């Protein structure tokens, strides 16, 4: 950790990098201010209540939108439409040959694709804004005629998303790090103070209900678990298996400097947070459906489902199994050993001791599979530990969610990496001094 602070300190010493950092921070501040600006024509309290009905799924969106969902701010829709647009375009480049060609046109083509992504973002934003307005019709409150107010609200939501998109691109262009990731990152980080507040409230209630020392012990435990989880996530995020790669290329010099970097890195957490989100969506599907269609029902099936999701052993086991399964599934989709093996072969590369072609592909696949076992266990642990602790201590909401920690750590590591790399390029000590 000390290394990280050292990096940041050094980064501020380099003028160019300092400018980039300050610029990035400035833009993030603008984003945060925006999340506090309410949309005209909406009653915030009613709006928040409406969305709390969605339960955990609502929480998930709130997380991504940096807490802007519940607050009915101009940034309520967050960056989601942009993310969706990028992915849809990614999909389309596979399906539509014209786009594929555009992508291959180099910089010029990529610029054009970025332009299309922006338009798609606005389009999706508009659709989402209409849906949001429709879902929150009851929260509309304005002196304007209803139709005019609707236009106002929808336009504001869409413009908010467009503005965030612009902020993100500005960070990409003139700042440091990936703008979109940082915006999500900033949203999560700003929940810190409210987490501390929650902890304080629990501390008070424990003190009232028991002894001061017990509650102090509990608080320390909460903080300790939080730190341990972060440490674990950092450790695993950076962990990788390095398969050495040799190239049949002639190097005439007598000494090889830096050759150890030719390896195939298999990240331990190759699947990222995706398996968690997948599992979560599926586990929540029944609840969500009930929330939508049978919210008032007291039929035994509905009650049973609602009860089951309140922390039974079976529920968590199923949850863990799903995470585990999706880890394998997603790694398999994302990671193509045959393609890697082919590329190696084309490039004259090979794994020492393994013949090219099928044996190489099998070796890589086998290695990746073994890592997935560990990854699955890790993801299940990170997700369930806070939930289980929450239900044991009867303090749900106190334990930091695994998803948030994974996102935070991933983005932070990426940022520090980038800063280091930029510093390397600028910061040169004299030779042999």
């Amino acid at each position, binding site marked *: 950790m000390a290394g990280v602070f050292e990096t940041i300190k050094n980064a501020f010493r380099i003028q160019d990098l300092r400018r980039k950092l300050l610029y990035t921070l400035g833009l993030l501040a603008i984003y945060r201010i925006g999340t506090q600006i309410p949309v005209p024509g909406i009653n915030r309290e009613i709006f928040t209540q409406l969305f709390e009905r969605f339960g955990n799924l609502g929480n998930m969106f709130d997380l991504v939108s940096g807490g802007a969902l519940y607050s009915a701010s101009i940034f309520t829709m967050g960056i989601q439409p942009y993310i969706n647009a990028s992915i849809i375009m990614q999909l389309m480049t596979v399906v539509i040959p014209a786009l594929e060609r555009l992508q291959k046109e180099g*910089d010029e083509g990529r610029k054009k694709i970025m332009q299309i992504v922006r338009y798609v973002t606005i389009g999706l934003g508009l659709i989402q804004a209409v849906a949001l307005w429709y879902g929150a019709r009851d929260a509309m409150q304005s002196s304007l005629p209803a139709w005019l107010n609707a236009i106002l609200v929808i336009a504001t939501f869409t413009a908010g998303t467009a503005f965030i998109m612009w902020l993100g691109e500005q960070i990409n262009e003139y700042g440091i790090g990936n703008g979109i990731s940082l915006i999500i990152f900033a949203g999560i980080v700003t929940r810190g103070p409210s987490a501390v507040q929650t902890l304080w409230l629990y501390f008070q209630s424990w003190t009232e209900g028991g002894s001061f020392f017990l509650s102090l012990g509990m608080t320390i435990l909460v903080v300790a678990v939080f730190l341990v989880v972060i440490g674990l996530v950092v450790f695993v995020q950076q962990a990788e298996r390095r398969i050495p790669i040799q190239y049949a290329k002639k190097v005439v010099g007598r000494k090889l400097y*830096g050759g150890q970097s030719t390896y195939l890195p298999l990240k331990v957490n190759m699947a*990222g947070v995706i398996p968690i989100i997948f599992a979560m969506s599926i586990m929540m599907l029944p609840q969500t459906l009930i929330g939508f269609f049978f919210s008032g029902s007291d039929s035994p099936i509905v009650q049973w489902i609602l009860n089951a999701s309140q922390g039974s052993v079976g529920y968590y086991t199923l949850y863990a199994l799903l995470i585990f399964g999706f880890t394998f599934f997603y790694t398999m989709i994302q990671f193509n050993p045959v393609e890697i093996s082919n590329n*190696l072969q*084309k490039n004259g590369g090979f794994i020492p001791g393994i013949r090219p072609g099928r044996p190489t592909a099998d070796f890589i696949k086998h290695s990746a599979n073994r890592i997935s076992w560990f990854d699955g266990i890790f993801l299940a642990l990170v997700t369930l530990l806070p939930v289980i602790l929450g239900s044991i201590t009867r303090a749900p909401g106190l334990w930091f969610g695994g998803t948030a920690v994974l996102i935070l750590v991933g983005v932070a590591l990426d940022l520090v990496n980038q800063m280091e790399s930029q510093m390397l390029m600028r910061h040169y000590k004299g030779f*042999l001094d």
Partner: protein
Amino acid sequence: MTRAGLPADRQYGRRVGLAEALRHRHVRYRHDAYRPLVDAIRSREAMLRDLPTEALSEAALRLGARIRASGFPGGAAASAGDPALGRLLAEGFALVREFGVRALGLRAYDEQVLTGLVLWDGGIAEMQTGEGKTLAAVFPAALRAMEMQGMHILTFNDYLARRDTAWMGPLYRGLGLSADCVQEGDPPARRREAYGADVTYLTAREAGFDHLRSFLLMRPEDEVLRPFYAVLADEADSILIDEARNPLILVAEDRTGRADPAALDRVARDLQPGLHYDVDTYSRNAFLTEDGIREAERRLGCGDLYAVLPGRDPGEPGVADPRRTAILTGLQDALQARVLLVRDVDYLVRDGRVELVDEFTGRVADRRRWPHGLHEAVEAKEGLPPSRESRILASTTLQDFIRLYPHRCGMTGTAVSGADELHQVYGFEVYVIPPHRPNRREDRPDRLYARSAARWQAVESAIAASHAEGRPVLVGTGSVAESEALSDRLRVLGIPCQVLNAKNDEIEAALVARAGLPGTVTVSTNMAGRGTDIRLGGPDEALRDRVTALGGLHVIGTQRHESLRIDLQLRGRAGRQGDPGMTGFFLSLEDPIFVKYRFLDLVPEGLRPEDGDMPLEDPVLLREAARVQRIVEGQNHAIRSSLDRFRVVIREQDRVIRQFRDEILRDERAPGLFQRRLPDRFAAMLDRMGADPGRRRARELERAAWLLLVPRAWSDYLESMEYLRSSIHILRVGGKDPLSEFNRTAVEAFDRMRRDLEDQVAALLLTVAPDGSGFDPEEDGLALPSATWTWMVPEEDDLYGFSSPVATSIAATVNPTLWTLAALARRFRERWGP
């Protein structure tokens, strides 16, 4: 292109539509900012004309003194309108123009003066063929030269350096300046003299090689160069884009062992395509399949080529066996030489040597080789004796070298389509200079045929038609082999023609002189492009009028090059200085550019053309075909600029280590390693030789040791980094950024090299006896390099693909469903798709 009726306005460029302005953001078409200066320069003309030459020479001397005294105000741009700078420039340019009239009998047009100002401001001037670049260059060169810090003008070849020096020499002399040129093979003393002149004409390669040699000097007095100050690059796009990546290298012969190229060539010769090896036309790569490896192992009788040497400790993984890896490397080279490199297209065999043909100029590239074992593999394929293995002593690329000059500018006939790249890599703006006389050339639309044979038929009948009228015809073909095939067919048809290609470059001047005569048909390659000046009717005025009346030169292109600029250079041979002319391209869907990028795969079934002899007329098809070149250009640009990003750290390290060695060379720095690392030996020397002589001798020896060993360590380092760069893209698989990993490794490796270097210096000093006798730099044999080469570097693709950074980093973090669908769709398409 130009607007009739607006002659005065036309001089300052044309207005362009919004679309064009947006597409070429770094191109300036209007130059109104320069108008006051051009007017001011013109207004001085009458006054200067009446002065005696001596008075003008004195004025030039005074101007030089003023320039040196004041420096140019703030290095400001002429277009900024600074009055002090404006006066200096107006006076200087007017003097240059007047001396042009007196010494050469040439009065520079306002357009040439405008070009001079643009160059002065550090721009790239795009000027059409025959508009007088040589004279325009003198304006900024003379004024820079007055600062007395050297001015280099980089020409396209040695001949032009010689010609321009002789031609423009009297003009410079009138201004009290000296001009000289460097030619290949000049001895150091001659070079030093040429570099000492105020203006030096030379090729970029000669300057680059001298820069490299200065890294190997053992005595400061052997330096031939002055510190780099200002440079003007002629044919700037060729130097800065096309040639930019081919490294210049200094090599020494080496006797390291290697796998036998001839034996490996015999194996490669008998392998079957599709069975033993596959060819990837897109990335121009051939590689062995699993069957091919087994076949090679059987033929060579060498057992498993991928077997490893056991690790040192039982638990440790094995390491690749260097001998077996060398065989694999040699096999790979042999296969490439057999399958991908074609005689009379990529290279010629002349006088028992393999000579490379430059892709962009169509000429034999002097002293250029393929890197490492590939050259030897080609020699083995052609049954030639293998040339000596060599070791790199120093290397740089033109791209890096050009940046050493604090003042840079350039000119060319084709800059617009490379403007983005020139801006991105070097920060240049491109200024389009309007022609003095309006362009009357007629560019016909492309004609596209399904089959190559139909295209050649059409080309032949087009040649026959023009030839019958008596018009001179110039045909550009894709290779030496194609030019010969076409000329054979023309002879069969009874059309006499002359062939200009890399094989007969020694009679180039004679062929070019005839090319503009009525009825001459010249079949050429890219050689008849850049720098080829075809005068209609030759020197004869009457013939010239006849050819002009017939419509001037007819230029026929027979393929699209990967770079649009090369095609434009061919077109530019017609219509020089307002002459009439006509150009047209005849293409076929079987041309390399369409095959390589699998153009037909992108065309929907229904639009696929059927065979036939008629040109294809479907507008969609034509439009898409025209786009292919743009796509390819964009891609090549992307590859080049991504490679450039890998040079940033290396460039900085190069600067640091050069400075370190230079300081030692000039004895301005003494690291004192002898005393620190070998205190006993040092004390013994002081004892034996006396304190002061001992100290002096120790310093002298240590200096020699550093000077010898620094270049060795640096060249090993560069090779390691090149190996790393070409193989690091695999890190993308693990979600890492190859560039930052590369930079990180480079910094660590540089540090390791530094420590290693200290050890080597200490080890060498350990051979010094207490009486001060020891190693001899001359005998250790690195003092003089034996050869200078440039390398042909294949432009390689990033196999692991670009994907939009947003999609990879975020989508993977947050949005599962769509992302997964995308991945699934890709997988399905790979497995079952076309």
